[in-house]
C-alpha cells in the first residue's frame, strides 16, 4: 500500500501502532530503552486510512499486525520478530545508523 511504503521510506525507524494497544506500547518502550527514537504512527488516529493500513500490514505478512516495525523502509515484523532479533543481538546493529549516541 502506498501510504505504508511512503511512511516507511520517510522514517528511519517507524512503528505502526494503536494508542489503545499495550503491546505496541511495550515495543515502543523497548526501542526507547535501546536509545532509539522511533516515529510512531497511530492508525486509530487516522480515521480515513487507518483500517486500510491495518489490512495492508496483514497482507505484507505482519503477524500482529500491530505493532508493525519498519527499519530503513523494510518491514522487520511485529513483536515476535523484534524480540527474536533483540535476543540474537541483531536488533541494535539494525538501529545504529539512526541514533549516533546509542548505548
Amino acid at each position, binding site marked *: 500500500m502506498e501510504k505504508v511504503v511512503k511512511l516507511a521510506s520517510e522514517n528511519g525507524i517507524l512503528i505502526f501502532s494503536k494508542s489503545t494497544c*499495550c*503491546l505496541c506500547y511495550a515495543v515502543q518502550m523497548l526501542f526507547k*530503552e535501546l536509545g532509539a527514537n522511533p516515529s510512531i504512527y497511530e492508525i486509530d488516529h487516522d480515521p480515513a486510512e487507518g483500517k486500510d493500513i491495518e489490512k495492508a500490514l496483514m497482507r505484507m505478512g505482519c503477524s500482529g499486525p500491530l505493532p508493525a516495525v519498519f527499519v530503513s523502509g523494510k518491514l522487520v515484523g511485529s513483536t515476535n520478530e523484534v524480540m527474536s532479533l533483540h*535476543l540474537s543481538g541483531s536488533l541494535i546493529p539494525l538501529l545504529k545508523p539512526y541514533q549516533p549516541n546509542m548505548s
Partner: protein
Amino acid sequence: MNSTSARFVPSKRMGICEPMHQMAMWDFKGNNFLETSPPSMFEIETNLDNLSEDTSHGTVGPSSKYDQEASKSDDKVRRRLAQNREAARKSRLRKKAYVQQLESSKLRLIQLEQELHRTRLQQGQYVGGGIDTSQLGYSETTNPGIATFEMEYGQWVEEQNRQISELRSALNSDMGDMELHIFVDCGMRHYSDLFTMKATAAKADVFHIISGMWKTSAERFFLWIAGFRPSELLKILMPNLEPLTEQQRLDVSNLRQSCQQAEDALSQGMEKLHYILAETIAEGQLGEGNYLHQIGSTIDKFEALARFVVQADHLRQETLQQIYRILSTRQAAQGLLAMGEYLQRLRTLSSCWSSRPTEQT
C-alpha cells in the same frame, strides 16, 4: 617369499579379524591357500609346460630358465598379494559401515523411546496417580479448558521429573554427545509443549494462567507474566555451566542484558494494560448495582492480556533457543538439568511448606 609374521587378515565370511600366524604360506608357485581355490588342473599343466619351455624368446630377460620361472612366480605372488590387500581393504570398509549402522540404529532407538513416551503422555495413558494435589494449586473450576490444562500440566510435571532424573544419569555416565543431544532436544521440546498448552489455556481463562493458580505457591512468588523470568534463569544457570569459554561468557552476558531489556518493555506494557483494565471495570457509576454494561470492551482487554502471556512465553522460548545455540551439547544438558532442578526445588519447597506442622498460637 616367506611371511610368517602374524598378520591380521579378515575372513571373507564375517568381517571379523583373525590372527593369521601359520596361514602365510606360499606354495612355490606363489598361490595363497586362504584366498584362492587350489590351482585348477589346467593351471598346473600350464605351469608345468612353462617350466619345461626354453626361455630363449629373444627378449631381454633372465638368462636361465630358472630365473624366468622365478620372475613368473614373482608376478603371481605380487598379483596374489595385491588381491589380498584389496580384499582386506574391502573387508575393513564393510566392517566400518556395519559399525556405523549399529551406532545410528542405537541413536534411533533412543529417539523412538522418547517419542513413544511423549505420545503416551499426550494420549493420557499415564494416569496422574502420584501427583501431589498440592502441586496443582487451586483447580476448582468448571471451565473445561482449564480442567484439561490442569490435567495436562500434572502430566507435564511428572514427565519433567522423569527427564531430570534421566539427564542426571546421562551426565554422570560416559554418554557421548550424539546421545546427549537427543536428551537435550527432548528437554527443549518439553518446554515448547508447555508454552503451547499455556497459549491454549490462556484463551480459555487468561486470569487463571496469569495468576499462576496452576503453579505451586513458591513458584507464584517468583512469577513474571505467567512463568519464569528469563534473565533470572540465566543468572541461576551461569555457575552451573562451567567451564565456559570467554566468548560464551560474553554471549550469555549479552543475552541476559537483552532479556532484561525485553522484560522491562513487556512489564511496562503490562502496567499500562493493568491501568486500562482497572479503568474499564470501574467505568460507569459505581454503587448503582448495574455492572458490566461495558462487558464487550472488557473482553477485548482480556484478549490483550492473553497476548502478553504468549509474548512472555515467546521470550522464554527464544531465550532457551539462544542458550542452546551458545552452549555445547554437554553444557546444554547441564543447563537443562540445573533449570529443571531449580524449578523442582520450588515445587518441593511449596509442598514442604504446605504440609509443615503449624504451631499453636
